[in-house]
């Protein structure tokens, strides 16, 4: 095999990593390099250093250590049966590339994943070596996200936690039975167990780290679910997410519309990615995390979200009896359920109404989207009257042109 130069390797191993939606670099504790030997800081909020023409944030150097893989997951470009070109970085190459990009302010840090080579343990060990070299040899204090190999030993995954700010294991398929069909070598129980162990370890380190005032262990974990590769409905996907947030305290569940790959499998032919569906799932996920909705309220298992309107509007249309609400008297929980009012806007309404009666103009100034909120709200100068009960109300919210899908 010809020796690949660094640029070619980078092209192959970043192309192979792009199907992972996560690029978040927030949530690490505050730290910087004052008093250190090296470079790097994390100050709470992550930074997107560039955006690709797909509109996605580029925050981290997101690469695979290698895209050689012994598994044959139908949805994955790196499956053993794919014709994709292969490459492998050395530990030093990844370390040097990370530091070189970081010093030029291209990135917040490293997101390292890998195909599984030889064994889960061998692969995990190589990845841990990269993180360890960055932290210990170079005193690198930027962000590190490591993908965990679920089959790796608990000792190795615990080591990953020592050097990483966040770890993740992708569940990929929302239904365990489809995992079996499309990723025959993966075991859902292995994945759940690894997440369970990681949550216990994160919990265990949280208190001592707070007392010591510095990082001692990863702060959180996340996962990704592919949307549209199996028969799971939106309700099933959200139920799965609710379960994951509850059981493993995941920081985030990422949804990734199943996207065409260059060399697709017969078991799962390429198709156009269901981007709007992905968008609705993110909206529903936010409702669960920040707006006090439960999964059954949003959508039952076995059912799909309405693509025509956002899930909050959809809920409001199904519960018209609870509207309109008066901005001056409604409690916070109910205001959060009004379409067109975001969490920040609700906070501002609560502050402003202590001093003054609010008009529609006031609401607009504090960030309300009146087009959606109007039908559900009473203000000092507005009441929707019978609007909320109109048959045709839904039509007002349906945009004739949806997100451009392609």
């Amino acid at each position, binding site marked *: 095999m010809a020796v690949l130069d660094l640029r070619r390797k980078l092209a192959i191993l970043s192309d192979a990593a792009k199907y992972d939606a996560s690029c978040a670099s927030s949530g690490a504790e505050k730290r910087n390099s004052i008093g250190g030997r090296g*470079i790097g*800081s994390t100050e709470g909020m992550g930074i997107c250093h560039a955006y690709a023409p797909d509109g996605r944030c580029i925050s981290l150097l997101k690469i695979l250590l290698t895209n050689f893989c012994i598994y044959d997951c139908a949805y994955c470009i790196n499956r053993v049966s794919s014709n994709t070109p292969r490459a492998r970085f050395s530990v030093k190459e990844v370390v040097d590339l990370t530091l070189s990009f970081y010093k030029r*302010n291209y990135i917040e840090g490293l997101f390292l994943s890998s195909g599984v080579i030889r064994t889960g343990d061998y692969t995990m060990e190589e990845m841990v070596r990269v993180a360890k070299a960055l932290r210990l040899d170079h005193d690198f204090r930027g962000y590190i996200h490591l993908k965990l190999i679920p089959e790796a030993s608990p000792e190795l995954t615990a080591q990953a936690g020592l050097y990483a700010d966040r770890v993740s294991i992708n569940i990929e398929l929302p239904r365990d039975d489809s995992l079996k069909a499309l990723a025959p070598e993966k075991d859902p129980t292995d994945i759940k167990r690894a997440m369970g162990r990681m949550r216990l370890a994160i919990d265990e380190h949280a208190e001592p780290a707070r007392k010591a005032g510095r990082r001692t262990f990863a702060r959180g974990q996340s996962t990704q679910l592919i949307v549209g590769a199996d028969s799971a409905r939106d309700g099933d996907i959200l139920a799965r997410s609710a379960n994951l947030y509850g059981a493993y305290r995941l920081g985030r569940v990422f949804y990734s519309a199943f996207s065409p790959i260059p060399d697709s499998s017969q078991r799962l032919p390429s198709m156009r990615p269901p981007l709007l569906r992905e968008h609705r799932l993110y909206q529903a996920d936010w409702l669960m995390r920040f707006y006090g909705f439960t999964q059954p309220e949003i959508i039952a298992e076995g059912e799909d979200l309405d693509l025509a309107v956002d899930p909050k509007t959809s809920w409001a249309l199904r519960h018209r009896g609870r509207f309109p609400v008066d901005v001056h008297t409604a409690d916070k929980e109910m205001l959060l359920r009004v379409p067109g009012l975001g969490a920040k806007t609700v906070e501002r309404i609560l502050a402003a109404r202590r001093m003054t009666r609010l008009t529609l103009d006031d609401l607009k100034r504090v960030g309300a989207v009146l087009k959606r909120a109007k039908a559900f709200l009473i203000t000092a100068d507005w009441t929707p009257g019978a609007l909320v009960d109109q048959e045709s109300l839904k039509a007002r919210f349906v945009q004739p042109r949806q997100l451009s899908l392609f």
Partner: protein
Amino acid sequence: MRVARLASEIDFAGWRSAARSLRAEGVEPRAVVWTVERELFDQEPADAARQTPGFTVPAAFVGLAEQVILNRAPDRLALLYRILWRLEHEPRLIDNPADPDMTRARDMAKAVSRAAHKMKAFIRFRRLEDAKTESYAAWFQPAHRVTEAVAPFFARRFTNMDWTILTPDACVAWDRERLTVSEGVDPADAPSEDAQEDLWRTYYASIFNPARLNPKQMRQEMPKRYWRNLPEAALIPHMIETAQERASAMVASTPRQPSERVLKAALRHARDASYEGAIPKRLSEVAAGVNLCRRCELWRDATQGVPGEGAEHAPLMFVGEQPGDQEDLSGHPFVGPAGRMFDKALAEAGVPRDRTFVTNAVKHFKHELRGKRRLHKTPDRGEVMSCRWWLDAERRLLRPRVVVMLGATAALGVIGEPTPIAANRGKPLRLSDREQGLVTYHPSFLLRLPDETKKAQAYAAFVADLRQAGRLAGIVT
């Protein structure tokens, strides 16, 4: 008309002292003209020296004003003075997000904070090849006058390297110890290309997914005004142009048949999920089987099956209800709060832990979500009965002399029919030729008792039951 002069566009101290005197003198906002005149400023600032009576403003105003002054909008100084003026009679103005002046100020502050954030994001350092030490420089045009405000961020981040940021407003330099600010420069002084930019462009082009093309979103987050300083931006037009074609080609391509070799390897790897292939002959087979069990639906929301654990030939077996949150995550029985209370009681009863075996009637954690918490839910009869397959196997392989049932679910799992705890507590019953049974409370029942006296009584009874079980098993004298 009064003229108030500042030393620079971002001279907050100057604005503050001028505004303070003006308000103290009762000069109305519309009677003030704010100007920035560096040259003239050598003169004595007219009113600043004079002692003016102090007054207080909400702390939030100072923070807001420090942000707003960095905005390039010419009316920012007048706006700030107007708000300061109004605060005298409307002290709560600062808390009213719906006021038009406050909205304008907040929008200005937001634009400043966005400009600062984008500066942190879009600065691109270039390595200076001819420098003696490792040094970097960047040319940047911030949307607002945030250079000095953002500089400490870069000092904290790139502490151990020399760098300079050049902008039209001001330049800042860091020498690994301190920041130096100097006059702004023009684009001609921008550093020249860095060889690493080629690698960065390679990364940028490869991480893009053409099937998800969404240039509008990109431009919203990375406005075109920043592009000229981004080495990767030159690639964008071509990436957009070819995206459709690349994506369509992928969708249209014929899926490939995997090779024979791969299919065989996959088959070899595929795990056999059948759990009833054979009746388990060892406790380790029970442990493996429990994980693959699909006899009821509880496996779906649980992390893993939690098999029993303990001494190989323990004469004393304890059966609990089901794993809890901690047991589910760790895969071990009796490690949560109830487990700890059980361990304590066992020690008080003088029962040696290494002569016992602990397990549960149901091997998966049944729960419901309340917000982000998983709350215990009692398994129903069907689930208990399905899981007897495993409990029976454990009893058969362990051959204990005494089986202690902790709570009603455990009793149902062992005996096979409902057995009230209060009425049967402490009475040994014959389970089979060689096994005696004993029912008692479940430790989590003790944890939940609200009344302290009742709790103490129940706990004492519980310890007594454990001691009795130990005697029956012949491990407590």
